[in-house]
């Protein structure tokens, strides 16, 4: 009788250990690499979009070099904001 109980508790411990391991490995390296790929383009894309918007508005209003500079800077800010948002999301996921 004692032996089966012993086996059951041991089985439980082993199962819980296995589960812990599984959750650890599923959040493992692969997903971090995915996040790393994500951040780079996030930054660049916003700068590019800002620049394009500035270029189009410049052509509309005929203020050739002015708006493209302003929107390039705004785009860079938006890119940094994107990265911060993504980083916050990652942090939230880990907690």
């Amino acid at each position: 009788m004692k032996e089966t109980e012993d086996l059951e508790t041991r089985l439980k411990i082993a199962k819980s250990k296995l589960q812990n391991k599984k959750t650890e490995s599923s959040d493992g390296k692969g997903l971090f690499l995915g996040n790393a790929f994500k951040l780079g383009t996030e930054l660049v894309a916003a700068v590019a979009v800002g620049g394009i918007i500035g270029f189009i508005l410049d052509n509309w209003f005929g203020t050739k070099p002015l708006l493209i500079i302003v929107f390039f800077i705004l785009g860079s800010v938006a890119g940094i904001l994107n990265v911060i948002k993504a980083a916050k999301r990652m942090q939230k996921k880990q907690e």
Partner: protein
Amino acid sequence: MASNPMHQFSVYKIGPEIKINGVDLSFTNASLFMLISATLILLFLLFGTKEKKIIPNKVQLISEILYSFVSKMISDTAGKKAKPYFPFIFSLFIFILFCNMVGMLPYSFTVTSHIIVTLAFALFIFIGVTILGFVIHGFKYLKIFVPSGVPIVLLPIIMIIEIISYLSRPVSLSVRLFANMMAGHTMLKVFGGFVISLGLVAGWLPLTFSVALTGLEILVAFLQAYVFAILTCIYLNDALNLHH
């Protein structure tokens, strides 16, 4: 011709030229490989779900893992409300995954290494999510451009920045997939070219690099499909659960 690393990306027509209202709708190698990927997915999932055994065979096991993987991804990132969009995200993920993986085969064509394909995906998601947000929340959806707790003086600048950040979503989504696939395949081809030009003497070094890169490319092919799908989930989450 064959040693040009960009040659693998050229699109050419297969069969007769089809023109409707001046729009070129000819069947190209890109459409052929999309068709191949779609057929493979269909066959794979049909075989996987044909016999529903309690102890699954390999194909059934893989298709069940795929299903639960995507299902978990959606419920983790977008919550329960996103459940109705499971079919869309699943088909998106598996289509990109199969296109990437079919592209890894020698002599094949990588559909996702063309920005027009990825941009079409990304714009479809972007426009769809925006419409969804407006349908669910009405004009309150514009609140995502106005973060809470910002002083009134800064509000116009913050709004412009948020709008740029919102507009950059399809660009980053499409450029990431396209750039990763194209860069990887170009690199593989360049190293392959080194093997030929260095010959038997020193060709072994780039050959080992090529083998290692192929492994990396398979990882990237999977990861990019995953990242694409998970970002779709995140954008969907922003549209479904408005909180700022």
